[in-house]
């Protein structure tokens, strides 16, 4: 806990600087796209937010499994503290995608598989939060939360593969593990920077949120009374 506290400002400022520099790089120093012109530049928000919204769910699924198997309390606190952040990043992904859609596709919303599965992810985050908060019994709430997170984790590969399995308006991934990126290097470097910076900023939010969760849940313990 104290070590995280000590590392926190470094993580925060490094990530903030990385993200701001990448945004500046992406907005002002890279050329425009040969098809989309300047409107592609929202990629430096849309891709990090989408990447994080899915990664956070995976993190929640792993933490849920750890809680269910080893009954590590901290692990389920983490699940509960990630959920609202996941909801926010998914919301950012949906909104930035909508804004991107207007000048390129000619519409801000369509019901294609990628967009609908992302909307389901957003609703799932909200559902998990309200489910957990609706219990009086903490232990029951934790158990139901982690089981439901695991059940919902099937949506993550569906989001990922939606653009391959079905015909969608959304284009397939530009960056894949197996192939050369379909995005030119001058645009790819700031994109990587923005993903790293954004991830760091979200990690800071997760740290803050889980601190709050620990203090809330352990509020009757003497160490919390000393700490607060």
């Amino acid at each position: 806990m104290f070590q995280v506290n000590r590392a926190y400002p470094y993580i925060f400022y490094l990530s903030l600087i990385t993200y701001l520099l990448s945004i500046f790089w992406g907005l002002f120093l890279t050329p425009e796209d040969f098809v989309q012109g300047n409107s592609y530049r929202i990629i430096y928000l849309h891709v990090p937010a989408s990447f994080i919204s899915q990664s956070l769910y995976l993190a929640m699924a792993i933490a849920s499994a750890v809680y269910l198997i080893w009954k590590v309390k901290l692990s389920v606190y983490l699940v509960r503290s990630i959920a609202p952040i996941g909801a926010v990043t998914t919301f950012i992904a949906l909104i930035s995608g909508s804004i991107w859609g207007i000048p390129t596709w000619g519409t801000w919303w369509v019901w294609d598989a990628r967009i609908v599965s992302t909307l389901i992810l957003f609703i799932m985050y909200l559902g998990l939060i309200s489910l957990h908060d609706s219990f009086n019994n903490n232990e029951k709430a934790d158990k139901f939360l982690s089981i439901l997170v695991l059940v919902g984790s099937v949506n993550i590969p569906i989001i990922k593969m939606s653009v391959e399995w079905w015909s969608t308006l959304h284009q397939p991934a530009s960056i894949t593990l197996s192939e050369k990126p379909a995005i030119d290097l001058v645009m790819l470097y700031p994109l990587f920077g923005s993903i790293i910076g954004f991830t760091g900023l979200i990690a800071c939010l997760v740290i803050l949120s889980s601190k709050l969760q620990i203090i809330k849940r352990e509020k009757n313990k003497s160490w919390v009374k000393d700490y607060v």
Partner: protein
Amino acid sequence: MKPVRKKRLQTVLLILVTSALGSFLIIRALDSNLDFFYTPSEIFLEEIPENKRIKIGGMVLESSVIREKTKISFIVTDYQGSINVEFDGIVPDLFKEGSGVVVLGYLKDKTIIAEEVLAKHDENYMPPSIDIEK
């Protein structure tokens, strides 16, 4: 691993397998209904009734675009089949010959009467200069 934990691990795996299997069956049952659009070659195979609103996706065939006042007509192709589209309205900026398009409309005399035309772009991003060099 302690027996009790092993049992919990099995439960976790069971949850994962069950939900994956459940979604797999749902997705299989929904089949092509999850597709956003038909391709031109599918359209005549599926015997779509006239006046039913459908979406067609494909490429705008090169030099098939004819503009007449506010009206525009073009051919959508998937290089196996193709279909005529007529549209009265504004097409998105990215609408171009040889690039992707999704058309919402209904079938009439083997022509799609479009109500909405959306542009579909691919996953490639590059500066304009590189495109010219190619």
